């Protein structure tokens, strides 16, 4: 009965959910204590970080194990810029550009390969970024950067101080919303449809005259610049940056969040980030167990709920499974075996 009611009013339900989330997000600093506001700010950043990963994973069919490198690039560029006394707005713009450029460069190399080779290349090239940050004196090397100021934001007419957690929360909210809007626009555009076709069958796409690698590269660069944007607001929030944030270990955070929330949904990464944020808050007393818990969670999601939380919710609402367990696409890199009929698929 209840289920039917929901199914009938699906759009209404979505609107209501959206309205509640917007109200909650906007009002959060007004009722939450500073600790929770801080955690919520972090969750917002992770939402954007994870969404940038999913732009590649679900909407382009590429798996990046190096997303943290672009996140860190943005974070370091913005942090160094504000530490030099300049305003954060400039730092954010530079971070977006830097994230995009580094991703375009490393993506160009990685995209020469496909499938697993591509994944491993993104991982290895991301490690180079980490090594550079770790060894380079300008980035603080292995000691990282500390005392990153939030500074002010220059609105032309007025300078707004971002020192308070509340005003900085709103800055993050604006940046993250903007970033999500860009990703939403890209994935729902004609351009995004072509990316989707490449994901579903890249051979067919190239036999429609599509320059597959160029499209993938553009998508990779966009994802990199959005990760850079997420990184840019991260440094001033925590005040510290450590080089480890560029390693491939950190690249798996957005993967976990995306899969947990539901990779097939635009709002999957966001859902994953929020749920994980709450989960982390509730288990904050249990330190040291994090990688075990992360691993078990990820394993459970991949094996038992590959559709993630939103997949579960939708299948409950609509009453049918929303994602197949094995989403091996035709023409995917894995399918280089003989196909029935003697046709041979080549990479």
């Amino acid at each position: 009965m209840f289920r039917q009611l929901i199914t009938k009013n699906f759009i209404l339900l979505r609107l209501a959910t959206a309205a509640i989330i917007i109200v909650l997000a906007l009002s959060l600093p007004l009722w939450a204590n500073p600790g929770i506001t801080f955690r919520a700010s972090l969750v917002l950043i992770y939402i954007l970080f994870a969404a940038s990963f999913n732009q590649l994973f679900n909407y382009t069919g590429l798996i990046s194990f190096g997303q943290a490198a672009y996140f860190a690039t943005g974070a370091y560029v913005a942090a160094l810029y504000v530490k030099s006394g300049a305003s954060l707005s400039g730092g954010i713009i530079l971070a977006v550009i830097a994230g995009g450029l580094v991703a375009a460069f490393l993506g160009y190399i990685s995209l020469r390969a496909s499938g697993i080779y591509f994944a491993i290349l993104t991982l290895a090239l991301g490690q180079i970024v980490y090594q550079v940050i770790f060894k380079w004196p300008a980035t603080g090397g292995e000691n990282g950067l500390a005392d990153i100021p939030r500074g002010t934001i220059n609105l032309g007419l007025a300078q707004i101080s971002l020192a308070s957690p509340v005003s900085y929360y709103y800055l993050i909210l604006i940046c993250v919303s903007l970033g999500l809007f860009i990703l939403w626009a890209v994935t729902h555009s004609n351009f995004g449809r072509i990316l989707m076709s490449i994901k579903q069958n890249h051979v067919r796409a190239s036999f429609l005259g599509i320059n597959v690698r160029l499209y993938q590269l553009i998508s990779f660069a966009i994802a990199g610049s959005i990760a850079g944007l997420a990184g840019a607001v991260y440094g001033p929030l925590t005040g510290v940056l450590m080089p480890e944030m560029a390693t491939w270990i950190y690249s798996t955070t957005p993967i976990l969040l995306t899969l947990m929330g539901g990779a097939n949904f635009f709002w999957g990464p966001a859902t994953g980030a929020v749920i994980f944020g709450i989960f982390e808050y509730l288990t904050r007393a249990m330190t040291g167990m994090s990688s075990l818990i992360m691993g078990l969670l990820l394993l459970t999601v991949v094996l038992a709920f590959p559709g993630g939380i939103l997949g579960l919710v939708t299948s409950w609402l609509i009453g049918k499974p929303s994602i197949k367990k094995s989403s091996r696409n035709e023409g995917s890199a894995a399918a280089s075996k003989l196909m029935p009929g003697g046709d041979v698929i080549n990479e």
Partner: protein
Amino acid sequence: MSDIVLEIRDIEKYYHQFKALDGVSLCLEAGEIRVLIGPNGAGKTTLFSVISGENLANEGAVVYRGRDITRQVSWKRVQMGIGRCFQVARVFPDMSVEESLYVALQAYAGWQKKVRVPRDFFRPPRYVLEKTGAILDEIGLTDKRNIYVKTLSHGDKKRLELAMALAQEPDLLLLDEPTAGMSPEETRDTVNLIKRLHSNRRFTVFLTEHDMDVVFSLADNISVLYYGRLVASGKPEEIRKDPAVQEVYLGKEGDFDAFS
């Protein structure tokens, strides 16, 4: 002397040590329907891959409309006018029929510079919308417009793939076993469809086929490939009588169906 669309010269193609094509040369004249026949494993699909750029030849040259495209990447060959359908239809499983055509036409419109950003950022441009309807009518998939591709029948997937290839306005169309796995009825429809498209669009068709009724009802000319070697090329009647062809693979039974 009519003009030559495609000329391939002394093509050799190896898979590791195995020689799949051994000195294949042939010419396609503009507007003809050429059927390539040969037993399974003869190298027909490989030859199509070499022409379309999915695989590169180890030796020899592929010349399309006077331009050497031997080492050209496949998507550029498509833009030059070479369309291809695969033996096992390659489609976008999680899109609807309509969306698949949007992509195909968008790709075409994109590189033909018919897109104006930003008006056309989210919605397919008008050219795409109109053309989608036209092609669906032409191919007979209008009633399946909103159906998910993965739920289509095998035959409909092949037709959709053909529709997507048509969206590129090909000048030379490569069809790899267009009737493979189809019921007699579907086969008849497909043959009629190919005839109709060919007479409307006047492009050159190069296809492989096992069903001899189909071969003789479509072919202007026939080429015979036998384990990597081209053993004969000519008019259907000549091929039927050609002693070399009979020798190689009509074999004891003296029947074209023997190898299919």
